[in-house]
C-alpha cells in the first residue's frame, strides 16, 4: 500500500481524544452545557405524555379523575399493576408478542440487508422495478388488505397461528426495511468502502462482512422500527388470532377498553407501561451500536 492511498490514522473514540488546547476545551464545555440543558428541556416536553401515562398507572382512582390535575403521584399505589397482571392471558400475551416480534425482526433484517445490498451495489434488469415495488407497497392503505389477507391465510391454514401473524408482519416490515437500508448503504462514503476494498477481497462473504459494520447504525435504526411497529401492531393480530391464549400483548391490552361499561384507566395505563418494557429493553441493548467512531474502527480492522 502506497502512502497516498492510505487513510490518515482514524481518530480515537471521543472519550480518549488527546486533550484539546485549554481555551477550546473550556468553550466546548460551556457550549455543551447549554446543549445539555436544551436536550433535557426537550426531554421533559416530549416525554411528558409518557410521564403522564406512567404516573397515572401509580395514582389511585380519585386522583386520576380529579378536577385539578395531580402532577406527582403523592399516594402511589401498585393496585393497578396488580389488576393488570391478574387479567387473564397477560403472560401469554407477552410471550406471543416476544416470539412473533423477535422472529419478524431477525428474519426481516437478514433478508432485507441482502436485498438492500443488491439494490445499492448492483445493476441488474428489474432493479428499478423492484425498488419501485418496495416503495409502492407502502403506499397502499392497509385497511383494504385485512379481509383479502385473511382469506389468503385461511387458505394456507394459517389463521389463528403465530406463524401466520409473523409472516404478515414480515411482509409489512420488509419493504420499509429494504427501502431504508438501501439508503444507508448509498450513504456510506466511498472513501471508506474503497479503503476497505483495498484489502483485496473479492468473495461475496468478505464483501458483505465489510459492508455490515459500515451500515450497522442503519441496521439498528431499522430494527428498532421493525420491533416497535410489530410490537404495537393491532388490527391484523386481532383479526388473524382467535384463541385468547395465542393473542399478542396489544390485543390483550384492547380488552381493557373494549367493554361496554366504563374503562379502568389506571389498569389500562399500568398495562401499557408493562408492555412498553420489552421495547425499552430491546432498545437499550441495540442502541450502543449507533455511535461515532464505529465506522473508523471498521475501516481500521
Amino acid at each position, binding site marked *: 500500500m502506497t502512502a497516498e492511498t492510505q487513510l490518515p490514522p482514524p481518530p480515537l473514540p471521543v472519550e480518549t481524544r488527546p486533550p484539546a488546547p485549554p481555551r477550546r476545551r473550556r468553550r466546548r464545555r460551556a457550549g455543551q452545557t447549554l446543549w445539555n440543558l436544551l436536550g433535557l428541556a426537550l426531554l421533559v416536553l416530549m416525554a411528558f405524555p409518557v410521564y403522564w401515562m406512567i404516573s397515572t398507572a401509580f395514582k389511585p*382512582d*380519585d386522583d386520576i*379523575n*380529579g*378536577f385539578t390535575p395531580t402532577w406527582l403521584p403523592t399516594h402511589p399505589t401498585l393496585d393497578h399493576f396488580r389488576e393488570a397482571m391478574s387479567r*387473564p392471558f397477560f403472560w401469554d400475551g407477552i410471550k406471543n408478542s416476544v416470539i412473533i416480534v423477535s422472529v419478524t425482526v431477525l428474519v426481516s433484517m437478514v433478508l432485507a440487508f441482502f436485498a438492500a445490498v443488491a439494490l445499492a451495489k448492483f445493476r*441488474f*434488469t*428489474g432493479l428499478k*422495478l*423492484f425498488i419501485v415495488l418496495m416503495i409502492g407497497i407502502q403506499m397502499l392503505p392497509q385497511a383494504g388488505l*385485512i*379481509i383479502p389477507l*385473511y*382469506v*389468503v391465510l*385461511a*387458505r394456507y*391454514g394459517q*389463521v*389463528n397461528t403465530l406463524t401466520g401473524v409473523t409472516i404478515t408482519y414480515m411482509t409489512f416490515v420488509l419493504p420499509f426495511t429494504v427501502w431504508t437500508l438501501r439508503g444507508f448503504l448509498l450513504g456510506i462514503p466511498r472513501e471508506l468502502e474503497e479503503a476497505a476494498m483495498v484489502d483485496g477481497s473479492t468473495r461475496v462473504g468478505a464483501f458483505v462482512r465489510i459492508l455490515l459494520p459500515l451500515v450497522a447504525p442503519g441496521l439498528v435504526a431499522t430494527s428498532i422500527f421493525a420491533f416497535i411497529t410489530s410490537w404495537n401492531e393491532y*388490527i391484523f393480530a*386481532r*383479526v388473524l388470532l*382467535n*384463541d*385468547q391464549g395465542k393473542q399478542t400483548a396489544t390485543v390483550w391490552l*384492547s*380488552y381493557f*377498553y*373494549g*367493554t*361496554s*361499561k*366504563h374503562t379502568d384507566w389506571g389498569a389500562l395505563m399500568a398495562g401499557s407501561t408493562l408492555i412498553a418494557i420489552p421495547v425499552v429493553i430491546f432498545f437499550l441493548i441495540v442502541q450502543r451500536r449507533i455511535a461515532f467512531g464505529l465506522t473508523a474502527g471498521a475501516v481500521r480492522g
Partner: protein
Amino acid sequence: MNPRILGVVGLIAALTFAIPTATATTGSKSATRAAANTLTVWLQIDAQSSWPDLVASTNREFERRYPGWTVDVQYASWPDHLQKFDATLAGGSPPDVKEMGNTEMTKYMAAGAFTNLSADKKTFANSKNWLGGLAASTTYNGKLYGVPYYAGSRVVTYRTDLFTRAKVKVPKTLAQYTQVARKLRAQNGKRSFSPVYIAGKDWYVGMGFVYDYGGRIAIFKGGKWAGALNSPRAIAGLNAFKRFFTVASRASKTTIETRPNPYDVYAQGNAASMIGPAWFTCCVGKFKAETKQFVMPSHTRGKVMPGFLGGSDLAIPARSDAKPQAKTWIRIFTNTQSEKTLQAKGNIPNATNLLGKSINERAAARSWFVPTAKNWVNVENANVLRTMLSDILTGKASVQKAATTASKSITRMLNR
C-alpha cells in the same frame, strides 16, 4: 442462457406464481375449524368479566346433551369485533354463535348473514314476551334471525345529599324535575356545576324527549323510509329538550356523552344528577353512600320517559355447519334460569314476564329503539342526530330548521 434474461423471467415468474388464477370462491370449509365436534361461540368481553359462571354452566349443560362435543368460547371487544366477523364471513369459517349489538343486527340481517330461526321461535324460552326493543332488532322482513340476550336502559343517578340540602324530592314529572334543577342551581352557582349533567350531543337523552312527546326518528311507509323529526310532535320534544338542557346542564353543547364521562363529572362533585346507564354507580368516587337512582320522568304524570334500550342478541351465521347444536346452546344460554342470573348482575332480562322491580327494569317499561333499516348505521356514523342537537343547543339553527335538515339526511341515507 443469458443470466439477465433468466433473472427477468425469474422475477416475473415469482410474481405470477403467487397469484392464484382461480377466483376467490371457496366452497369448502377451511382448516380453521379446530376439530369435528367443536361449537365455536363468539361473545363480547363483558361475558368473560361479569358472568363467566353462566358461560361455564351453559357449556357444561351443552356438553351433557351432546357428548363428544366441546364448546370453544372466544371473546371480542366492541370496537372492532365486526371487522373480524367480516373477515371470517369472507374467507374462513364463521363462528356458530355470534353475539351482536342490537343496533348492529339489521345491516347483517339484510345482507343474509344469519340463519332464519322463525320455525324455532317457540323453542326459545319466553319468546312470546321478548322485550320490544330487542325483538325488533332480531326481526327483518317478518323473519326471525336472532335471539335477544340482555338489555340495559337509562336511568337518573343522583346525589341524595344535594337533593336534601336543596329540599327537593325525587321528581315525578318533567316539569317537577325542571323545578328541582332550578333549586339545585340556586344552591350551587359554580360555573362548572350541573344540576343534571347531559352532554349537548347526547342523542340518547335527546331522542328520549322526542319519543316522549310522541315523535319518531323515522317512519316506514309505503316501502320507503321517511325521516320524521320535523313532525310537530318531534319538534315539541326537541323544544322540551332544549328548555330542560338550558336550565339543568352546564355541560359543553358540542361534546358527546363520553367526553368526559358523566360519572367523572359527578365524582368530581360537579353534577347533582346524571342520565345514563344503570351501571354508572360503579364510578361515583367518594359519593357512593349518597348515590341513588330514579327513573327519568315523562312530561306526562305517572309515566316514564322512554329510554334507549341498548342490548345484545345472539345469532347463528348462515354458513355454520353446526346449526342444531348452536340452537341448543342459545336455548340454554337464554333460558329463564340464565336470564335470572343476568338480571342478578344488573342487566335487564330479555322478556317482560321476567322483569323485576329494579330501577333499570322499571325504566324499560317505555323504551325506544332506532329505526330497523339496514342503512341506519350510516346515519349514526354520519352523526346526523348529534349535529342536529348541538346546532339546536348552540342556536346555530332553529329547532325547525335543524330538524328538517336532519330528516332530509335520514330519508336520503335510509333509502339508498
